[in-house]
């Protein structure tokens, strides 16, 4: 092999950079964040699997419906009715944003800007908490 010193350094850099996910966590098992679920309720607005993946879509529809059409009543697939509201509905059951929404969002690098304007029940006016 010619220039073996340089080539080996290059190979080591390549392996070190691309193996980042392996050495970064040092093989430690990462525990997913513990989400605090409502104690007195059993069922979310829609099926849990749908909420997990698509709650932001639902919030978007709610927002458009309220702000553009003034329609505030949401009828879920189970026939229950909900007031379409971020603060008053979601956070009525999921009482602490920090222990539910934020834990999941921080873990996955999601930073909704909703809380620039909307106020979560407990953190009144402390600004953007991500």
């Amino acid at each position: 092999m010619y220039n073996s010193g340089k080539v080996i350094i290059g190979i080591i850099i390549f392996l070190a950079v691309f193996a980042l996910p392996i050495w970064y966590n040092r093989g430690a098992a990462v525990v997913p964040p513990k989400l605090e679920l409502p104690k007195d309720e059993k069922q979310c607005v829609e099926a849990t699997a749908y909420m997990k993946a698509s709650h932001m879509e639902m919030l978007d529809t709610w927002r458009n419906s309220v702000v553009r059409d003034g329609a505030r009543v949401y009828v879920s697939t189970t026939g229950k009715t909900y007031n379409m509201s971020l603060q008053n509905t979601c956070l009525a059951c999921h009482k602490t944003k920090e222990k539910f929404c934020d834990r999941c969002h921080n873990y996955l690098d999601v930073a909704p800007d909703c809380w620039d304007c909307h106020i979560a029940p407990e953190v009144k006016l402390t600004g953007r908490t991500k």
Partner: protein
Amino acid sequence: MNAWYSVFAALFIVLFLTLVSLIGVGPVGAKGIFGIYIPYLAAVVFFVGIVVRIIQWAKVPVPFNICTTGGQGKSLPWIKNDNLDCPHNTWGVIGRMFLEVFLFRSLFRNTKAQLGQGAKLTFASAKWLWLFGILFHYSFLTIVLRHLRFFTEPMPSFVQWISYFDGFFELLLPTVFLTDIVFLLAAGYLFLRRVVIPQIRYLSLPSDYFALFLILAIGISGVLMRQVWKVDLLQVKELALGLASFRPAIPQGIGDIFYIHLFLVCCLAVYFPFSKLMHAPGVFFSPTRNLANNNRMVRHINPWNYPVKVHTYEEYEDEYREKMKAVGLPVDKE
């Protein structure tokens, strides 16, 4: 080979691969295979394949100094030399390589030969390939770096910064990343360039289209997963971290589209070491880029040189001295 045959052959293979994962995960339900075995296999092929190929390249001797020059070389002290375009030392080579790798400098020099007025051959600068090439590579890099959010906990802050700026305009919900748009547009341009320009269509092989289609399919499946068929990212991260810490486990509820995306990425990783995509490490091995133009200062020894058996004049004379003297020929040594 017929040009359209190349396009359709490549398209067919990519569609076939998509279908394999769709059926393999959906009806067959082999999530363990697509979520654990294939990713590990792909990673091994990717790393071993690239290292082996690099070592093979490093074993090839460079018989001549064939660096390309694009500027005044170093000669007399009062002639200004251009150490980036015609490097005479290692720093110059490093500078040229840096600009090549990060700014695609030689692609920037791309020209187009045209017959102008009166059948005069003119060369015009052609920068579109450079522009879309660089957009494509940098958006690809940004997307891969953003994906680190699935593989690291706690996340390095630069990943959060990248995502923040990438989603700066907060278009739609979930926010559309600018690099996603740029990535698909640039890859789309690189494809259209091959089919629209007749000369390039004539030159393009199925492997040219295959790499592009595979990358486009990865991008499209990713964007669809983010904007349309959403999956639970909490579980995606569980799977990704499980793979990275060698504790693989398949979480129950991830949508099929995720496995399609992952399988296409694995195909790309397996294909990489055997394909033209190896231009990434290849640029460092290009003698035209990595050699200094110092022919007149340093003798380039051909490593191929084998010891040539020579018979010098002294030896010749030693051998025939008596005979030469006998016939009256002049000799150096008496």
